[in-house]
C-alpha cells in the first residue's frame, strides 16, 4: 500500500539513522507509523474508533481483497484469550466502507481442529452477520507451496493457505498477550494461523522443530502487504497465551509494519522489544524497532503503558525503567 511521508519525517528519520550508525553511510530508516488509540470497552463505539484509525493510516483498499486474521485459540468466551469479535466486525465494516471488493475473516487455530465451533463459542456467529459465508478455515484451505523469501529457520518450502497468500491486504488482528515460550505474542506470531493444520497437524509442530522465533520471522517475510490491529482493549498477562489473566489496557495498536506495531505493543506491556528474538530477526537487527525510529500517532506510549505480569522465566524481558 503506498504511503507518503512529509519532508520533516524523512529528515527526522535520516538524522536518527545517522545517530544510530554513527556514519550516515547507510540508507535512512523510513519511520513506521504506529497508532495507539484509546478504546475503553467492547461496545458500539468501536465501529467509529476503528473507522477513524484506518482513515488515519490512509489505507487504499478500494477494489482490493482484504483478509482479517484474528487470533482464535480456545473455547473460553469469558476469558481474554481470543480476539474479540466486535473488534473484528468493526474492522470488517470499516474495510467494506472504504470500498474493499471483498473482506473475509480467516483463521487456522493451532490446537483445536473445529475452527467454526471455536468461532461460535467465541461469539463470532452472534456478532458477525452470516459469519459462515465470510469465514475461511485456513487449516482446511487450498494451499500453495511457497519458498520462503528469507530463511531464518530450518524450514524448507512450506505449504500456506491460499486465502492468506492471495490477499491484497492481510490484516493481522491478535490479542495483546504474554507468551510462555516467546515472552509476547502479537501480530507477527498471529501468522502461525496461515500454516494449514490440514497439512501439518494440530499443533503445527513442524514450526516448533524448525525454531519458533525463526519461523515467525520467516512467515512475516512471506507477506509484504500487511496491516496489523492489536486488540489491547483487554489483553492477557501472566501465563499467556492460554492460561493467563485478563489485563484491561483499553487500547488498539495499529500500523502497516507488524514489527513496529509489535514493538510498540511490547512497550505498552513494558516488555523490552529488543529482547524478543523474532522482532530482532524480522527487523533486520534492531534499528527498525527502536522507539525513535517509529513515528507514534494517537496516544503516547507513556499515557497507556502498563506493566503486564510476566512468568518467572521471562522476568528478564521487563523494560529496565519499569
Amino acid at each position, binding site marked *: 500500500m503506498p504511503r507518503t511521508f512529509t519532508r520533516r519525517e524523512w529528515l527526522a528519520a535520516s538524522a536518527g539513522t545517522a545517530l544510530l550508525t554513527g556514519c550516515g553511510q547507510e540508507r535512512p530508516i523510513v519511520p513506521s507509523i504506529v497508532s495507539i488509540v484509546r478504546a475503553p470497552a467492547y461496545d458500539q463505539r468501536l465501529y467509529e474508533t476503528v473507522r477513524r484509525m484506518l482513515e488515519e493510516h490512509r489505507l487504499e483498499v478500494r477494489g482490493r481483497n482484504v483478509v482479517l486474521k484474528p487470533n482464535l485459540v480456545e473455547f473460553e468466551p469469558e476469558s481474554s484469550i481470543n480476539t474479540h469479535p466486535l473488534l473484528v466486525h468493526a474492522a470488517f465494516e470499516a474495510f467494506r466502507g472504504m470500498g474493499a471488493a471483498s473482506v473475509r475473516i480467516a483463521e487456522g487455530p493451532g*490446537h483445536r481442529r473445529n475452527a467454526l*465451533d471455536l468461532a*461460535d463459542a467465541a461469539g463470532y456467529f452472534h456478532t458477525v452477520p452470516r459469519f459462515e459465508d465470510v469465514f475461511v478455515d485456513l487449516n482446511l484451505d487450498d494451499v500453495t507451496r511457497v519458498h520462503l523469501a528469507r530463511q531464518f529457520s530450518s524450514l524448507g518450502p512450506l505449504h500456506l493457505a491460499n486465502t492468506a497468500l492471495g490477499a491484497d491486504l492481510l490484516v493481522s488482528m491478535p490479542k495483546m498477550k504474554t507468551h510462555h515460550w516467546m515472552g509476547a505474542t502479537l501480530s507477527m506470531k498471529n501468522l502461525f494461523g496461515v500454516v494449514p493444520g*490440514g497439512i501439518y*497437524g*494440530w499443533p503445527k*509442530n513442524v514450526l516448533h*522443530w524448525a525454531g519458533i522465533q525463526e519461523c515467525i520471522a520467516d512467515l512475516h517475510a512471506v507477506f509484504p502487504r500487511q496491516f496489523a490491529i492489536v486488540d489491547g482493549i483487554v489483553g492477557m498477562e501472566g501465563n499467556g497465551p*492460554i492460561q493467563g489473566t485478563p489485563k484491561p489496557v483499553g487500547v488498539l495498536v495499529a500500523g502497516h509494519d507488524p514489527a513496529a506495531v509489535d514493538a510498540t505493543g511490547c512497550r505498552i506491556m513494558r516488555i523490552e522489544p529488543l529482547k524478543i528474538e523474532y522482532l530482532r530477526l524480522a527487523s533486520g537487527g534492531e534499528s527498525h524497532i527502536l522507539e525513535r525510529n517509529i513515528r507514534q500517532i494517537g496516544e503516547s506510549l507513556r499515557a497507556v503503558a502498563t506493566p503486564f505480569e510476566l512468568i518467572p522465566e521471562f522476568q528478564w524481558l521487563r523494560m529496565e525503567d519499569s
Partner: protein
Amino acid sequence: MTIGMLADKQNRDGGWPYVRGSSWIEPTAYAVLALLAAGETERARRGLRWILAIERPDGGWPPRAGIDQSTWVTALVALVPPEELGASAHARAIAWLLGTAGRESTLTFRLREWLLGNAGLSEQEPPGWPWVPDTAAWVGPTSLAVLALEKEYRRRPLPAIGERIDSGRRFLLSRVCQEGGWNYGSVRVLGYACRAYPETTGMALTALRGVRSPATDRGLAVAQRFLGECRSADALNWLRLGLRAHGQLPVGYCHPLEVAERTLSDTSLGLLVAEAEKGRDFLLA
C-alpha cells in the same frame, strides 16, 4: 445430513472436501466408511479409487493430492477394510504406520539429547505417532493409528502390530492431563497444567478400549462431563465413541439436535457413530 446428502457432496474426482472445494483424504476416508456401512458401495468405490490414486511410493498417504509427504491420514486409510481398499495397498498402509513414530523416539534424537545432557539414553517415552514425519507424537494421530492397528490385529495378530498398539496406548496413558482426560498431547507447559479437550479425550478413550486403569477412569469421568457441556459435533462424535468403547455411554443418550455439523468429516463420523450405536460398527470392528 443423510447418507444420500453425503453422497451428493462427492467431488467429480471421487473424493470429498471438508466443506467445499478440493478433495482431502480425511473426509473421503470417513465418507467411504459411512457409505460402506450404509451399503452404498458404488459411491464408496469411486472414493476408494481417488484414495488409491494418490497413494505415495512409501506406502503412506498425503492429506490431499499434490502434497509430497505421507502423514497421519494413512491411519484413516488403514481403517478401510482390506477387501475394499485392496489387500496390498492396505498392507502398505499398515507397514507405513509400523515404521512411523514421533521424532522424540528416534535413536538420533535420543542420542542428541544424551549428548546435550538433557536425558539418559535409556529414558524413552513409549513411541506414539506424529501428524507428519520428523515431528513429535501427539494424542490425535496416535489414537487413530492405534485404532487402525487394532483393527488389523484382529485379522492378523502379529507380535509387531501388538507391540505398537501397546506402546501407543502407553504413550496415551503418559499424556493424561492433571484433571483427567486428554488435550492435543501436552500435560504441562513450563510447570503449568494444561486442560483437557473433549475431542481428544474421546479419541484417546476410543483407542484405549479394553484398558482399565485409574487414568481411563478419570478420562471417562471427564468425558461424561464434556458430553453434557460440549456443542461441537466433532467432539461429541468422539466422546460417544470413547464412552461407548468402555460401555459408559449413558443409556438412552440423545445427540443434541442443535449441534451443527461444520464439515463433511463431522457428518460422516456422525453417521458411523449412529450405525455403531445400532450395533453395526464399521469404524472399529
